[in-house]
């Protein structure tokens, strides 16, 4: 086809059309290139609970593949060894103590369970010896407190939504209960979730030919963990309570896949917060049967739950690949805190302690980032990083400007991981949950328990397992 331009005006018009088309094309490419982000958070998954972190009794190829396709961190810290506060920091990019959150939000659980606990606490200890390890404050007047993420905090979902992203939250929320604290009020367009700290994986009545329940009478969480779905433990889709009849780990994967399918043409941000492997321990029988190399039921159930989690993560990653989005999707995976040693199902070895302690077993978690084309595959990063970095990293890769009216405690990790910056992302890490506090500066870590007047000093580089309390060598001088 040949055009003959007869005058200057026609030439100018044609030039303008060409330029306009070219500009629109460039804009379209820029839009296509905006990466999707999937943030996957596991619940109480310990440092020694994945094959890639040394567990020889379990197969977790899908989660581990995030490391073979990207970066695996050996020193990924969270900001609290309990779920709620840790998650507040992940989603705001700020130490949660900056906005007064260092304890778990009060969940609204089944009134009969709560009443039974209050009335029969002393006698219940006989059937649930784990309750001896719990000193509940039944008399806190919850009406006196607003227990959730404050309104003026900005979640990463809110930020990305303003930058044109479709946002979804699938899984455990734990950032507050009731009106004012719903995911839809924190920047999420879509949500399929439960509000609280835990819920059953399978609702009553449990088909015991398909699922195995493992009770933990030695755990302080046992009575609440098996409460029927009510209030904070109910499953919700948006503002509505729904009946989920599946195994929750797979239901969450399925809802995540549907979200990706619906939004594959838009840039999307999906927060996928599995509640596995938090108690109550419930596992599909086929996953229990897969754990051949373990004899005891407790570990077979626990490891089976983690293998189910791994398959769920695998299904979501497969969806990303099948939708042709793999090269343009950043996937981040981490646990919210260390493994719960009080369940007796995990040890966090070689680390000491676990959930509900400020030893590294409670604070160092499995942590991966996959960003094809930007981050090298199969890379192990041994310098300490923080879950606080997730916010700033996501903001950077999505070209989203951080608000300048507040302090962000994390950094964009990409320049450190690509070698553009050769310094450390962080020198100092802080932890505080009331009277239990800790600080790591360089190789050194101090752990203080003001209630029991305990103090520990470790060189965590030479002593990964925090076995040698150096302050004990000179006890009088260290007090």
């Amino acid at each position, binding site marked *: 086809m040949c055009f003959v331009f007869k005058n200057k005006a026609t030439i100018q018009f044609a030039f303008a059309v060409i330029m306009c088309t070219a500009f629109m094309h460039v804009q379209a490419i820029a839009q296509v290139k905006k990466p999707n982000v999937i943030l996957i958070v596991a619940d109480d998954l310990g440092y020694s609970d994945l094959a890639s972190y040394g567990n020889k009794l379990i197969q977790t190829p899908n989660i581990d593949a995030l490391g073979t396709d990207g970066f695996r961190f050996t020193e990924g810290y969270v900001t609290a*060894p*309990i779920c709620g506060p840790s998650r507040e920091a992940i989603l705001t990019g700020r*130490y949660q*103590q*900056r*906005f*007064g*959150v*260092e*304890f*778990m939000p*009060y969940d609204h659980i089944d009134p009969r369970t709560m009443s039974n606990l209050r009335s029969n606490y002393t006698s219940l200890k006989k059937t649930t010896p784990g309750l*001896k*390890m*719990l*000193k*509940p*404050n039944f008399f*806190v007047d919850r009406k*006196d*407190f*607003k*227990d959730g993420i*404050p309104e003026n905090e900005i979640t990463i979902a809110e930020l990305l939504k303003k930058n044109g992203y479709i946002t979804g939250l699938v899984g455990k929320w734990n950032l507050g209960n009731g009106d004012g604290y719903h995911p839809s009020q924190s920047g999420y367009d879509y949500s399929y979730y439960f509000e609280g700290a835990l819920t059953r994986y399978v609702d009553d009545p449990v088909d015991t030919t398909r699922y195995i329940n493992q009770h933990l009478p030695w755990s*302080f969480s046992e009575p609440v963990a098996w409460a029927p779905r009510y209030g904070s433990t109910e499953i919700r889709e948006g503002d509505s309570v729904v009946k989920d009849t599946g195994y929750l780990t797979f239901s969450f994967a399925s809802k995540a896949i549907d979200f990706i399918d619906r939004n594959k043409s838009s840039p999307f941000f999906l927060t996928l917060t599995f509640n596995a492997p938090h108690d109550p321990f419930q596992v599909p029988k086929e996953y229990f049967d897969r754990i051949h190399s373990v004899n005891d039921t407790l570990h077979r159930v626990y490891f089976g739950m983690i293998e189910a989690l791994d398959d769920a993560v695998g299904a979501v990653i497969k969806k990303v690949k099948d939708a042709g989005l793999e090269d343009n999707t950043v996937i981040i995976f981490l646990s919210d805190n260390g493994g719960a*040693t*009080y369940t007796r199902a995990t040890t966090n070895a070689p680390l*000491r*302690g*676990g959930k*509900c*302690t400020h*030893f590294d077993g409670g604070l160092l978690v499995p942590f991966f980032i996959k960003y094809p084309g930007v981050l090298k595959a199969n890379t192990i990063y041994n310098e300490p990083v923080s879950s606080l970095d997730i916010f700033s990293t996501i903001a950077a890769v999505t070209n989203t400007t951080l608000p300048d009216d507040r*302090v962000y405690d994390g950094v964009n990790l990409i320049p450190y991981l690509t070698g553009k910056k050769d310094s450390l992302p962080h020198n*100092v890490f*802080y932890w*505080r*949950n*009331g*009277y*239990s*506090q*800790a*600080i790591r*500066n360089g190789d*050194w870590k*101090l752990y*203080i*328990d003001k*209630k*029991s007047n*305990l*103090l520990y*000093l470790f060189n965590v580089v030479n002593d990964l397992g925090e076995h040698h309390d*150096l*302050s004990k*060598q*000179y006890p009088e*001088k*260290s007090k």
Partner: protein
Amino acid sequence: MIFQNNILKKVNELQKQLEQWEKTQFIKPRWKSGANVLIDVDGEMIWFPT
């Protein structure tokens, strides 16, 4: 003796740094801990506020 002094210095330094951080960066918790739990860490029992 040198090692002992270094340990003491390190304890003091970290304590001060943590206190400073608390004073300047953190605010009072917005609600009380709902429970204290006692955790067995290699045979040592340690309290933790949740």
